[in-house]
C-alpha cells in the first residue's frame, strides 16, 4: 500500500461516524506509520466501522504506553526501536559511543527493559497489545566489520530477546515476528528531518503486520486431508502399503513435512480427519505403519470409500459438529477440490502441490496462518478427545440426549462465577461460537476487560466432564444484575457440549446464585443460532427475531425438567469485586 492509497482509504471512510479507538505508542513521530496503520486496520474491519487512531508525544515511549493504558482504546500497537531503549542507539542523539558510554548503554538498557515491561504489563491488562521489536539497525558501534557480529551487539540482542520472551508470556501481549519485514528500513534523511525513521515501504509492511496481529481472523478449526499423493506419495491401492512413502531416501520428504505439520496442528487442538477414495481396510493398514511422522489416531473420523468426497466431508462435518467455513480441505486432485468446493462454498480448499517442494513449504506456512491463534488454551488440547467422546455417546444410545441416559455419564458441571481477566478462553468462546449463541454479538479484548471491571457484571464460565473425560470450559454467560433481574447480554456454548443439558444447569445455577426472580435475554436471531432458539422454545421463552425476552424463576422451574449432572460452583458469588 502506498501513502496515497492509505490516505484515499481513510478519506473514503470519513463519513462512517465515530470509530473504534486504537492507540499507536512509539517514541518517534508516527507520521506515515500512523496513516498506514489506520488504513490497514480499516481494511480489516467491516465497511461501516471507522478507526480513531490515538498516539502520544515524541520521544517518550514509556509515557505513551502509560497514556495508552488510560485511553479508551480497544487495542494498542507498541513500536519499539533501539533509541527507545537508549537514545544513544538512535540517530538523533549525541551522547557519544566511547568505551565508557557503551558500558553505560548496556547497563541502561537493562533498566529500560524493566520499566518497559512494567508499563506494558499494565497496558496488556486492559487491552490486547501488539509489540513490534526494533527493526532499525544498531549504530555502527561494533569493533568488527559489518558482516561480523560484535560482542556488544550480541549482548544488546540477547537483552532484547530476554525482554521479548518475558513479554510474550503476558496475557494479551502479541510479539510481531521480525523476519517478514522488508528492507530497506531506515530513512535516515526523514529521521533527521522529521523524527520519522522508516521508509514508506517498510512503514507499510510494519503497519500491515501490526494490523494483522491486532485484527486476526477467526482461526480454522479442522483440517480434512486426502491420503494418496497428499499424506503420502503414491496410490496405496496400486503400489501397496509398503509402496507409499514420505521419506528423504525416496525423495518424497515433502509428504513427510506435511505429516509433521499435521502432527503439530493436532498438538495445537486442530481437528484432523481423512477423506480418501480407497478401501477402508487398505487405509487402516497403511495408517498402522510405524514410520508415520504423526500419530494417525489424531485422524478422526477416517472416511475411505468410493463415493463423492463431498459426501464423506458431510459425514466428517456432522461428526465434528462444525460448519464448513471453519474447515480446510487439502487434496492433490483439482477435480476433487472443485467437487467439494461446489458442495461447500464456505470450505477452504487447498491443493497439495505434488513434486513441488517449494510450494509444499508455502502450503505449510499458509496452514500456520489459517490455524494460528494468539494463545493456546487447555481446551485446545482437549478438543480432539471430546469429539471422539461425543461420537461414542451417540453410538451408545439412539436417544443420547435423554436425561436418563445422561445420568449414566456421571457428569459434573463446574460453574465459575469469578472474574479472571487473564483467562481468554471465555472471550474466545464468545467470539467463535455460532450455533448456541444468544445474539451473535462479538466483544473486543478491550471492551471485555472493561466489562469485567464493572460492579454489576455477572460472568459464569461452565466446564464439564464425565466418564469419557473432560471437555474443559465450554460455555459462557455474561450479563449484569439489576436488583431481582439478571440481564444476559451474551450466552454461548461450544457445539462439543450439545445434548448434555448444560444450558439447563447453567440457567438453574444462575437463578440460585443471583437470587434473581427473572432473567432477561438480549436475544437476536442469527442465521446459525437455531440450537439456542430451540432451547428457548423448549422453555417457553418467546423469542421472535430480536429484542429482549424473559423467563421467570417459576417459569423455568416448571419447564426445565431433570438436571442429570452434579454441579459444582467454584466461586459462590457473582461479582467478586
Amino acid at each position, binding site marked *: 500500500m*502506498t*501513502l*496515497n492509497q492509505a*490516505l*484515499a482509504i481513510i*478519506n473514503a471512510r*470519513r463519513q462512517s461516524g465515530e470509530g473504534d479507538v486504537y492507540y499507536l505508542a512509539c517514541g518517534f*513521530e508516527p*507520521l*506515515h506509520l500512523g*496513516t498506514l496503520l489506520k488504513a490497514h486496520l480499516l481494511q480489516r474491519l467491516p465497511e461501516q466501522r471507522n478507526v480513531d487512531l490515538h498516539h502520544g508525544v515524541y520521544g517518550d515511549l514509556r509515557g505513551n504506553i502509560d497514556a495508552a493504558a488510560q485511553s479508551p482504546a480497544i487495542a494498542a500497537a507498541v513500536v519499539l526501536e533501539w533509541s527507545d531503549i537508549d537514545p544513544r542507539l538512535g540517530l538523533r542523539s549525541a551522547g557519544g559511543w566511547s568505551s565508557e558510554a557503551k558500558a553505560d548503554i548496556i547497563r541502561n538498557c537493562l533498566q529500560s527493559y524493566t520499566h518497559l515491561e512494567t508499563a506494558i504489563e499494565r497496558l496488556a491488562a486492559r487491552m490486547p497489545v501488539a509489540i513490534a521489536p526494533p527493526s532499525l539497525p544498531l549504530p555502527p558501534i561494533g569493533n568488527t566489520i559489518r558482516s561480523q557480529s560484535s560482542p556488544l551487539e550480541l549482548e544488546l540482542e540477547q537483552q532484547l530477546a530476554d525482554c521479548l520472551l518475558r513479554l510474550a508470556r503476558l496475557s494479551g501481549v502479541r510479539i510481531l515476528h521480525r523476519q517478514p519485514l522488508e528492507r530497506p528500513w531506515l530513512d535516515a*534523511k*526523514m529521521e*533527521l*528531518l*522529521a523524527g*520519522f525513521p522508516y521508509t*514508506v515501504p517498510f512503514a507499510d509492511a510494519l503497519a500491515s503486520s501490526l494490523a494483522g496481529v491486532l485484527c486476526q481472523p477467526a482461526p480454522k478449526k479442522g483440517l480434512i486431508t486426502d491420503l494418496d499423493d497428499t499424506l503420502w506419495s503414491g496410490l496405496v491401492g496400486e503400489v501397496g502399503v509398503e509402496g507409499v512413502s514420505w521419506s528423504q531416501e525416496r525423495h518424497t520428504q515433502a509428504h513427510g513435512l506435511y505429516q509433521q505439520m499435521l502432527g503439530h496442528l493436532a498438538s495445537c487442538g486442530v481437528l484432523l480427519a481423512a477423506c480418501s477414495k480407497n478401501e477402508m481396510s487398505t487405509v487402516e493398514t497403511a495408517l498402522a505403519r510405524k514410520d508415520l511422522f504423526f500419530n494417525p489416531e489424531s485422524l478422526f473420523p477416517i472416511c475411505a470409500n468410493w463415493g463423492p468426497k463431498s459426501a464423506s466431508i458431510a459425514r466428517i462435518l456432522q461428526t465434528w459438529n462444525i460448519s464448513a467455513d471453519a474447515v480446510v480441505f487439502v487434496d492433490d486432485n483439482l477435480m476433487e477440490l472443485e467437487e467439494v468446493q461446489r458442495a461447500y462454498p464456505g470450505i477452504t480448499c487447498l491443493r497439495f502441490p505434488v513434486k513441488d517442494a517449494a510450494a509444499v513449504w508455502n502450503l505449510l506456512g499458509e496452514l500456520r496462518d489459517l490455524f494460528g491463534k494468539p494463545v493456546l488454551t487447555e481446551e485446545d488440547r482437549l478438543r480432539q478427545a471430546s469429539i471422539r467422546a461425543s461420537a461414542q455417546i451417540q453410538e451408545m444410545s439412539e436417544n443420547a440426549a435423554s436425561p436418563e441416559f445422561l445420568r449414566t455419564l456421571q457428569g459434573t458441571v463446574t460453574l465459575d462465577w469469578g472474574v479472571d481477566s487473564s483467562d481468554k478462553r471465555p472471550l474466545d468462546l464468545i467470539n467463535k461460537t455460532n450455533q448456541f449463541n444468544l445474539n451473535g454479538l462479538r466483544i473486543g479484548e478491550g471492551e471485555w476487560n472493561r466489562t469485567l471491571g464493572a460492579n454489576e457484571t455477572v460472568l459464569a464460565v461452565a466446564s464439564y466432564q464425565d466418564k469419557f473425560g473432560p471437555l474443559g470450559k465450554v460455555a459462557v454467560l455474561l450479563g449484569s444484575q439489576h436488583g431481582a433481574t439478571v440481564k444476559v447480554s451474551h450466552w454461548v456454548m461450544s457445539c462439543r457440549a450439545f445434548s448434555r443439558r448444560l444450558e439447563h444447569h447453567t440457567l438453574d445455577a444462575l437463578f440460585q446464585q443471583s437470587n434473581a426472580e427473572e432473567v432477561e435475554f438480549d436475544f437476536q436471531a442469527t442465521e446459525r443460532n437455531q440450537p439456542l432458539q430451540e432451547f428457548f422454545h423448549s422453555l417457553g421463552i418467546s423469542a421472535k427475531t430480536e429484542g429482549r425476552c424473559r423467563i421467570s424463576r417459576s417459569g423455568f422451574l416448571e419447564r426445565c425438567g431433570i438436571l442429570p449432572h452434579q454441579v459444582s460452583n467454584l466461586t459462590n458469588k457473582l461479582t467478586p469485586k
Partner: protein
Amino acid sequence: MTNIKDRVTVCFSNVFPNIRPEEIPGASTTSLAAWDSVAHVTLLSSVAEEFGVDLEVEDFDDLVSYALIVDYLEKKSPNG
C-alpha cells in the same frame, strides 16, 4: 502541465480532506490552518510518492504553497 496540477490537487485533497476544491490553488502554510508541520511532511511525502521525486531537506523549507509545489514539479518534469 495541467496533469501536474490535477495530481497535486489530488494530493492536497487526500491530506486536507476538508478543503474545498476552489481553495486548493491558493493554499499555503499561511492561509491553511490545517497545514501544520505534520501535514507538511505528509503532503510533501504524498507529492514525492505521486511524482517519484526525491525531495531534499531544503525543499521541505521552500515548498510552502500549492503554487510553489506545482512550479517545482514543472521545472523537474522532462518537458518543464
